[in-house]
């Protein structure tokens, strides 16, 4: 116990200061949705993550965004265990045929208002798996997507900045 405490104190605070850079505009958000999000979710956002056949790198980076260095939770963004608790669905992967039903059901299980965020190049259009006999490709053909976070995989910083800008608009600076 003492060893734990000692380590805790010696390690200090490792969390990085993050500023949402105003340079990049996120275009995929409609104006109406934007005001809804700012009104309803600006102080907290609960996200349910669904992997529809990604390679696991996006998941790894989403987990990294929650580590003490990036600490996504301090901005009020939480990852929850059930779609019933979620405001947003974060989808990764090129939507394997086997995951289509699970993806739709997860979305249906979420309470209104709700929206979908896609993460990684596969979720945008199938990425490298485009044209395979077993993937549906773009998530936006299946569910209404409000925001896409590009990258293969997007880094934790990319994920956090995209989410923050999405939540607070461009005027936000932490």
């Amino acid at each position, binding site marked *: 116990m003492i*060893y*734990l405490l000692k*380590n*805790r104190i010696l*390690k200090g605070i*490792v969390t990085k200061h993050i500023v949402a850079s105003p340079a990049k505009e996120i275009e995929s958000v409609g104006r109406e949705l934007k005001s809804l999000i700012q009104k309803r979710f600006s102080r907290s956002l609960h996200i349910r*993550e*669904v*992997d*529809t*056949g*990604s*390679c*696991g*790198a*996006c*998941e*790894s*980076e*989403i*987990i*990294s965004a929650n*580590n*003490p*260095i*990036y600490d996504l939770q301090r901005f009020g963004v939480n*990852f929850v*265990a*059930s*779609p019933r608790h979620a405001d947003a669905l974060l989808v990764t*992967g*090129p939507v*394997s*045929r*086997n*995951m*289509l*039903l*699970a993806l739709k059901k*997860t979305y249906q299980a979420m309470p209104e208002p709700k929206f979908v965020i896609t993460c990684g190049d*596969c979720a945008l259009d199938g*990425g*490298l*798996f485009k*044209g*395979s*006999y*077993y*993937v549906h490709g773009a998530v936006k053909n299946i569910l209404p997507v409000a925001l896409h976070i590009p990258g*293969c*995989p997007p*880094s934790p910083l990319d994920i956090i900045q995209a989410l923050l800008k999405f939540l607070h608009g461009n005027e936000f600076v932490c």
Partner: protein
Amino acid sequence: MDCPEVISSIKKSLPDFSALAVSQHYPDEIFIKVSPEAFKDTSMVLHKILPSPVMMLFAVDERKLTGVFTLNAVFVNLKQRQWIILNMDIPQENPYFDSLAKSIHSAAIFEREIQEMFGIQPKGNPDLRRMNLHDEVWPQGNFPLRNDFKGMVNGNLSEYKFNRVEGGGIFEVPVGPVHAGIIGPGHFRFSVAGEPIVNLELRLGFAHRGVEKLFEGKTCFDALRLSECICGDSAFAYSVAFATAAEKISGISIPQKAAYLRGIYLELERMYNHVSDIGGIALDVGFSFPAAYASVIKETILQLNEKLTASRYLKNVNVIGGVSGDIDDAKKLILFDALKKIKKDFNALVKMLNSSVSFMDRVDTTGVLIKKTAQDLGVVGLVARASGIPTDLRKYFPGVYSQAKFKMMTQEAGDVLSRLELRFSEFVESCRLIEEFTIKLSGSRDMQVNSVLKQESALGYVEGARGPVLCWLKTDAHGVIARCKLVDPSSHNWQGLSYAVLGNIIPDFPVCNKSFNLSYSGNDL
């Protein structure tokens, strides 16, 4: 061991054995072609005398050229540092072969895969339920890996039949494919009697993307990028396995410096995976400070990767014939500095975990996979080593690892603690290996050679973080891929997990699962 020796050792157990053809294109691969009648017996002899699980079993559609399917079983001879590929023809009318699954368990999943992908019947296999092409969404009679597959034809859908445990007081707990955590998709069905698990039924394949088909028709250079996106946390291991196969086909050996660089990156990949798993094990028993501590170490390694190669997951680093990014003197300094910090943090992490009695109590004797079961199932990689099976491609096919005097680690008990401690010791060994490799990084400036591809087939293999990643590659006359079969260590090990959890309680399942840390995307392809 050369070809005649292999044949004579088979003949000792199988007196009337005769091969149709025997050849050795590469020093580490022996190819034996046998008649369909002899295939099963020969496989069983090889399985016994080497001893080796069926490392790969796959079909190839060669109907266009020769009018037949071929079936290949790959065995590994660790002591002689060789792979033995047993091959037979299957006629295209009513294709079938005699199933090995009842005698060799490790063949079972491959046979199910051959049945669903090619429509070739493994006669005598008791379990032919489909794995990756789910009955609910994929009509029967569509065999995607056949060459004449043009697209899905609508037909009858059906439903998957789970094995059921019946009786008084048995409850079934279904979990997934969408889990509570941020992980891949898979379905687990627990049957419990009171608290203990009496049966765990796994249903995977949710992340199936048709990867093997996507490889076909691509040039090796294009396909290398695809190989990095199959299993995100083993991106580099996959690209090395693929590149090795392509290099064998083009008959080149990579420069010494590139071999060292690959060693460094492979060990970096192993380190971030191991430390992430150690953190995961702590988190899954609710010990959150060490888990956070481990995630900081993981982040340090990922940032180091980015500094060295501009990619956190070591993508776009490997090329066929070598490695694209150098580690120069400035980067060496960064590497050594980071390693020093990582080692210090890691020692603190190990001490934290070892000094907590309640943590040790949770992991000790939890999720035991005994050696006999592990051997019977043909478990490979880290999980096998934790159950006392000495198997590590870095030892038996060392390459540059022999210059660094690699020490293979094993544990005996096969429980979560063994797998945890094995990760501790392998992490430290990886640090040492990276330092050794980095010191030896000098001399030749060339890091890659140009390659010309021809019509051939070859096996590429490498020990990734979980275990051996295998890639069998066949190219046509233009150097275009005709078939690429990949096997992730997870495919062998998922069955091991379903045995390890028996008798444990469901709340201990996450920690058992994390200690195995098997890949969904690598297994489902």
